[in-house]
């Protein structure tokens, strides 16, 4: 088991390197750098001034070198100005060049400096991730149990009226994207359009103290979308299990219907949806972008939008590293959990 996790970690690191390199390349394309120079300096810079700015910042080095510096495996670029002062990535404003470390990258824990928030990236990512984590936790708590119940109820008697009704609900919620359902929910429950002012249309205050009133709508918006999908998967898997021969065996053994569902079918039916549920985690990040912007909840998705909109290269990179890690870790959990659910697969 330990060896298996180690091997998976190795693969994860490799995947992480490939993906971050890709993002790094795309964010470091010349037009992006030019824009960076102009937002950092001034918008009326001439081409020469732009290239001299980039030269000073070390942006014009070959891509692998820049990537190495960002990772922290190569000594970072330093530029001696005409006045003799030294500037570089590792030298924070007001710090003496001699005291600054030579290496500063992800490995050293230095994630860069956000040009939008004027803060260190690591701090921003940490803070925002915590906020989004809170949101995701509630989404999962609402989405997974209700999706499973929906799926199991629909799948245990395939083709029945319950099945048809629940399936229709599931399809409807999955077919409605967040930006539609969010707007509708706000219109119905939070605006004066309908008049049911049960909830707040903004979740800004939920960052400090979340309560049912200010947090339920964003949670529901994300949960609804994912719920339908998981419920469909669970239904299909449940319906298949219910026709299996061992269910007939159980039935002809005299097991009552509720017990057949709970004791015999459930574990087998959850094997397939489990992977899907784990896949929902990274996928939720996606929904989070829209919902957090919609409800003005300043979490991870909102930060991503800000970083992308303002060409904040370091922040974008930081965000993408976190996303990659979230995806890979959930995959690992999914594989391990699968082994526990399915006795036919064993890790030795």
């Amino acid at each position: 088991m330990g060896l298996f996790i180690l091997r998976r970690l190795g693969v994860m690191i490799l995947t992480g390197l490939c993906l971050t390199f890709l993002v790094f390349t795309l964010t470091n394309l010349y037009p992006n750098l030019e824009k960076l120079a102009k937002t950092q300096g001034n918008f009326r810079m001439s081409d020469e001034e732009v290239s001299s700015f980039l030269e000073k910042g070390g942006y014009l080095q070959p891509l692998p070198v820049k990537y190495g510096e960002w990772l922290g495996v190569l000594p970072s670029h330093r530029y001696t100005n005409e006045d003799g002062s030294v500037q570089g990535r590792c030298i924070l404003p007001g710090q003496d060049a001699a005291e600054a470390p030579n290496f500063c990258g992800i490995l050293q824990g230095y994630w860069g400096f956000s040009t939008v928030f004027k803060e260190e990236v690591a701090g921003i990512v940490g803070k925002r991730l915590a906020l989004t984590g809170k949101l995701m936790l509630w989404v999962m708590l609402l989405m997974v149990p209700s999706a499973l119940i929906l799926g199991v109820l629909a799948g245990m008697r395939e083709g029945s009226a319950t099945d048809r009704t629940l399936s229709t609900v599931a399809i409807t919620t999955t077919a409605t994207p967040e930006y539609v359902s969010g707007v509708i929910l706000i219109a119905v429950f939070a605006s004066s359009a309908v008049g049911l002012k049960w909830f707040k249309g903004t979740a800004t205050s939920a960052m400090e103290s979340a309560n049912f009133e200010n947090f339920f709508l964003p949670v529901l918006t994300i949960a609804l979308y994912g719920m339908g999908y998981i419920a469909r998967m669970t239904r299909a898997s449940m319906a298949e299990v219910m026709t299996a021969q061992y269910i007939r065996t159980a039935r002809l053994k005299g097991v009552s219907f509720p017990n057949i569902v709970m004791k015999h079918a459930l574990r087998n039916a959850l094997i397939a949806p489990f992977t899907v549920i784990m896949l929902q985690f990274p996928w939720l990040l996606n929904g989070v972008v829209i919902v957090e912007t919609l409800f003005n909840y300043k979490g991870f998705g909102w930060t991503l939008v800000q970083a992308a909109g303002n060409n904040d290269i370091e922040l974008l990179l930081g965000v993408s590293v976190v996303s990659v890690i979230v995806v890979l870790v959930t995959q690992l959990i999914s594989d391990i959990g699968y082994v526990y659910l399915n006795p036919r697969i064993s890790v030795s």
Partner: protein
Amino acid sequence: MTKWDYDGPILEIDKLSISFFTRLREIPAVMDFSVVVQPGEAVGLVGESGCGKSTVALGVMQDLGVNGRVVGGSIKFKGRDLGAMSQEELRDIRGSEIAMIYQEPMASLNPAMKIGKQLMEVPMIHEGTPEKEAYQRALEVVTDVKLPDPKRILNSYPHQLSGGQQQRIVIAMALMSKPSLLILDEPTTALDVTVEAAVVDLVKDLGKKYGTSMLFISHNLGLVLETCDRICVMYSGEAVETGSIEDVFDKMQHPYTQALFRSIPLPGADKNARPLKAIPGNFPLPHERPPGCNFGPRCDYFVDGLCNKDQAIKMQDIPGNDRHRSRCLRINEIDWAAPMALEDTKTKGAIGDVVLKMDNLKKYYEVAANALFGGSGATKVVKANETLSFEARESETLAIVGESGCGKSTFAKVLMGLETATEGKILLDNHEIQDTPIEKRDTKTVADVQMVFQNPFDTLNPSMTVGRQIIRALEIFKVGKNEAERRERMLSLLDLVKLPREFADRMPRQLSGGQKQRVGIARAFAGDARIVVADEPVSALDVSVQAAVTDLLMEIQREHKTTLLFISHDLSIVRYLSDRVMVMYLGHVVELGTTEQVFSPPYHPYTEALLSAVPIADTSVEKEHIVLEGDIPSAMNPPPGCPFQTRCRWKSKVPGGLCEKEVPPVRQMADGHQVKCHLSDEEFNNMTPVIKIAAE
């Protein structure tokens, strides 16, 4: 629930009719079916697939699904009508009073639940037994079904057991609360012959021990003969003949029963002198049944105007016999004792030169110890074939016999070029082909060595017409210059396998199993194959069709002088059609000789056990009863010394524990007869025949 006492018959099915309802029509699956099971009695229900025997079983369980419904008649269990019971009452009876044993043990056990829990559930539901007692009871029953190490078994998951062990668990589960009626739905079809024999033995013993009545559903007449007291033959949804085993087997009174017996090979049958007689035509689909007698169109005694008159035919009592009834209008007119009209006897083609020669062929596989997550673990070597040496001659049928895992399919793969040999030689017309994979073989070699597969349902492309598939083979073998020529050749191939030419434009799904297998044969012979490997070509087919397909293979062989390598586990059919037999066990050839030599003593101990395990549908045959203990060892981890030593009953006759130390040498017994065994000549000479045909 308390079990109530009742003196009368355990199960009375009276004029039962069951139909399935589809959107299009009502499909009658069972019509006017009556059977009575007395306490302690075992009744066999025999028929081909689709005849409704499993529907009867599910009808008794009242578990016909959403579409099925009992449309007439009644099923009484211990005097109570099952059809009138509520769901709760039925649930009480299921598992405690009526238990069922299923065809596929693997699929019938919950894969994600430990064996112990699945067993303990039964008494816990029905008798409210506390968990500890239930566990004790489970231990007891698992010991009863002769499984080793019951505690470990109770704590394992179904996939950790072998097929035979799983079936024993299913039997144990059925016996957990001592039911009065046991329904066995083809309980051994998925098992190997020697394992089957052991399971059948067990069921018989337990039936006696617990006094359970049994309804035994099978398509295998031999098996029914061994296990049951009474038999009911079904055809197309109706019972056509019921009676005691002796009456039905020896004094049959229905043309279908007679035809069924004539289409299965019995020990005395010989392919040239007494060929099998296939039942002509096809099994009617449930919605296409003919008017009058269902068997009419395929019956030898058919009389126009009588048998096809649109009327229901009633079961008639046969006077003089014990509850012997038959559904035939002409019982009194037919001379049942008349011997079978002999069709023209065929002469065997002369056996020609050696075309295929195996010399010390070996095939080893390396497998990772843990395929999914391993990689660093040590690799294990599976010795699928060990030192295979034999010759096959022109127009000869060489049968390769053995149970699953004995390496017969691996050998076929190596011969076909799907795998390459690890060591040794395969000589086809004196050139070596063992190291040439099929992609590198020239068209001629590929066309020369062809294969007929076991399962005709999976081997035809479902989205291509039959003709197209044969033409595709012709294109690959570069037969014919243009499309028209190939089409002509394809039609003549259809003639060869006796399929109507219109079938060229049909899709595989429109064909029955036997017809599909004929297409498979046509495809194999597309390039005038000289060596055809037939891998269990008839085991997926119904008995009445088996004979026709086997005969077809024989006929093509006579015409084309084909060398036929017939892989099978069915010794009756092997005896019937092969010239020479090779018996394999765990990758070793344990015996090789002419059919005559292999089927009479001296035997290799394994051959002896195999012969004893085969159920024979003939009341005049006496068999020596040999039951092999345990399962076939895994090829991953074969026993040291002789591969068969773990199950051999002769082991004690060899001095010095030689069997455990050394692989026995190949011994020449007689001309062309070789046996791989340590037994002394004296012991060999003292062996008695396993199968004896009692003097009339």
